[in-house]
């Protein structure tokens, strides 16, 4: 019986049920079919393996392609300005002066301001959902609502910011006595702050829920209060996860284009304070890419894209690494 | 039924088999003694090996069950009881063999009168029926029957106690029965042991069924 099993492996044509004819019980018949099929399946197996491997290779090719494209297309700008590109304080395409310092500053200001505003809220939501009320309709509602924040397209935030938030900020600015423009870094930060709450919140929530309940029980059994459990068990256990959430939020804020473009005011000047209008790297590209009428200008914009790419990728990778460290 | 229960059941069956064999040994010995049938006595002597084999087998089975099933509670008590009963039955087998040996050794037929005087046959009958009754009480987990054994053993004890006087009287009356009389005394002594062993067995039965250790103490409570 076994020899016929062996035969199947060899490419020799299969005799139908060789060796099985002696018995004709239902089991042997099915055994027969089983073996015939299996031969075909060994080939299908190999094809399948190869397909998914090719797909995996393709992803690598894709990303390499993206990087190569960016680098190649920004070669003109890199050659002409070099590193000074980053520190140049003036951006004047008409005069072919491409210094991105104002946008760098704008990007960092908006992102960090947004981060500072959003983090307490994110962590509060994370604790609320992860520790205090993990189950029930009200926490479910909160969870879905917060997830919704992430689902709303950024262009809608931008539109709403432009139509509703900017006038409010303008009133606020005139009240505290700065130039009442409305559009500017502060407005963008507010919008961004709302938009990035869910990232840190949902990651934080899952990290907090991952804290083994037996650790919390250990603390409770030693007579700890809830606050002490949070401070001494949950926070230490999740700190790198929470930080990773912050990094992901930051990455998101840095790369965010449309909402910022619509409310930041779009000027290439160095912002004087957080209420000034400005530009971020992304918003410059969005605004000027189709207007770039000569190669160096276009190349400069692409180099800006490259910088943005590198910064966001680095920030994101740090976040990812941290998450991996925690979940492992 | 769990595997353990199966095993216990088969041990029980085996023990009952041994029991029947021992009973038949005792009965044959009685017949051999009464009829002075040396061949029958020799048969008993031969079959003693089978009793021994039974004992070994049951001991070994118990050991395996201990090792493999880790019995507790009723099962443990049952096994411990089986171990003890096993030993006791083997002793009874031994005694039957011993008595048969006397019969084989003895030079001539025993004096019938001696039997009557010493009540040795009654003793034999009692011992055999006690053994049978304990077996029944074991088969049926019947502790009432087991308890009744204790009283019946006293009859044997009384006969045994009276034996020395009766035997010495018999010898004094007729010196020629001396050899016979000494044998009969030895037989009586042995039968008294059978009574004791049976009593022990009854105790073990009560021990495992009711989990009371009756042995040695509570002499008064014993009688229901």
């Amino acid at each position: 019986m076994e020899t016929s099993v062996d035969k199947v492996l060899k490419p020799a044509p299969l005799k139908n049920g060789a060796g099985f004819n002696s018995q004709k019980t239902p089991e042997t018949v099915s055994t027969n079919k089983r073996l015939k099929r299996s031969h075909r399946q060994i080939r299908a197996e190999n094809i399948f393996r190869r397909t998914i491997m090719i797909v995996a290779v393709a992803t690598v090719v894709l990303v390499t392609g993206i990087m190569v494209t960016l680098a190649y297309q920004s070669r003109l700008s890199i050659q002409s300005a070099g590193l000074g590109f980053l520190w140049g304080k003036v951006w004047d395409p008409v005069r072919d002066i491409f210094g991105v310092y104002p946008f760098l500053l704008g990007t960092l200001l908006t992102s960090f301001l947004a981060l500072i505003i959003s983090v307490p809220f994110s962590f509060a939501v994370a604790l609320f959902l992860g520790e205090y009320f993990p189950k029930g309709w009200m926490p479910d509602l909160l969870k879905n609502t917060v997830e919704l924040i992430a689902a709303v397209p950024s262009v809608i935030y931008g539109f709403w910011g432009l139509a509703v938030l900017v006038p409010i900020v303008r009133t606020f600015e005139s009240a505290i006595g700065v130039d009442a423009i409305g559009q500017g870094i502060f407005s963008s930060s507010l919008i961004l702050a709302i938009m990035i709450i869910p990232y840190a919140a949902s990651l934080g929530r899952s990290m907090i829920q991952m804290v083994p309940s037996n650790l919390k029980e250990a603390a409770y059994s030693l007579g700890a209060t809830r606050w002490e459990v949070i401070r001494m068990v949950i926070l230490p256990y999740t700190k790198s996860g929470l930080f990773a959430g912050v990094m992901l939020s930051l990455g998101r804020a840095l790369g965010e284009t449309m909402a910022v473009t619509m409310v930041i005011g779009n000027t290439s000047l160095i912002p004087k304070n957080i209420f000034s209008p400005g530009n971020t790297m992304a918003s410059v590209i969005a605004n000027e890419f189709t207007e770039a009428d000569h190669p160096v200008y276009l190349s400069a914009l692409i180099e800006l894209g490259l910088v943005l790419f590198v910064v966001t990728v680095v920030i994101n990778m740090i976040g990812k690494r941290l998450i991996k460290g925690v979940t492992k | 039924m769990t595997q353990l229960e199966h095993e216990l059941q088969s041990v029980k069956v085996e023990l009952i088999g041994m029991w029947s064999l021992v009973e038949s040994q005792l009965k044959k010995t009685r017949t051999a003694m009464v009829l002075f049938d040396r061949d029958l006595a020799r048969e008993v002597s031969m079959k003693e090996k089978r009793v021994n084999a039974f004992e070994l087998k049951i001991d070994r089975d118990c050991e395996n069950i201990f090792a493999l099933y880790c019995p507790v509670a009723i099962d443990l008590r049952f096994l411990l009881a089986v171990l003890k009963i096993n030993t006791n039955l083997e002793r009874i087998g031994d005694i039957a063999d011993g008595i048969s040996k006397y019969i084989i050794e003895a030079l001539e037929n025993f004096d019938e009168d001696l039997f009557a005087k010493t009540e040795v046959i009654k003793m034999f009958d009692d011992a055999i029926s006690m053994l049978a009754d304990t077996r029944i009480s074991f088969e049926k987990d019947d502790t009432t029957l087991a308890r009744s054994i204790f009283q019946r053993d006293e009859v044997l004890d009384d006969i045994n106690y009276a034996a020395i006087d009766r035997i010495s009287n018999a010898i004094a009356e007729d010196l020629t029965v001396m050899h016979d009389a000494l044998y009969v005394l030895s037989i009586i002594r042995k039968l008294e042991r059978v009574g004791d062993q049976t009593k022990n067995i009854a105790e073990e039965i009560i021990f495992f069924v009711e989990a009371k250790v009756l042995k040695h103490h509570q002499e008064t409570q014993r009688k229901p």
Partner: protein
Amino acid sequence: MSVAIKYRIGKSTVFQALVMVLSFACVVPLIFILIYILQAGITKINWHFLTNLPKPVGETGGGIANALVGTSIIIATASVIAIPFGILCGIYLSENKNSKLAYWSRLCIDILQGVPSIVIGIVAYFWLVKPLNGFSALSGSVALAIMMLPIVVRSTEETLLLLPDSLREAAYALGMPFHRVILKVIVPCGISGILSGVMLSVARITGETAPLLFTAFGNPYLTTDITKPMQSLPLLIFNYATSPYNDWHDLAWGASCILLIWVLLLNIFTKLITRKWKVQL
């Protein structure tokens, strides 16, 4: 001792209150936004709005039919490209956890996930728009497909990794070949996770504007030719919202409202379907 304990308990209670207040404060802006947009947009939506092209400045009325059709086509094309690719890649990653290729592939997917959408727009511009000499819906779809890819891959991979090894072993132990183990056991068991990843990625790209700016570009007319520039909802919103005309703002509010409802529905639908199809392990 007792005072100390009371103090500790008090601290605990105060902190809890703080957490609750902050949590619910998050919800406020979202509700404002939703209400505002629904208020502003819902009145604009009618049959005419859905079936007509936008009118030039000055004329009242007009609709967004071109954007609706365009968005549907662009998204459908992107999905066709990204979903099978993403799922197969996710399978590879989950089945070859430790291989070199998996490491690099995973790294690339991670990178891709962090790439700002605008940058992907740039890349698509150079890959398709320039060689084909003109903006096209196809280039927009490719850009969006690249955006979808990491979401689909990661959700597939994570779902499959969550499935216990015992499931795989059960299948292997029955003598099943690799592809059957994957397609008949692993994927069906993880179908709800994979689907939710797919649907979320669709929801996500529906609202993407930046990569379309220099690819699909926008088109005031209705077209179904994917080699031509094509209008899409987010593009329309961006263009009209930043215009100075109130009529166009109205169009944008209507479009925002539709986009929002579509995204909400997709999210809710995802929740339902994943709950329904969830395989109880």
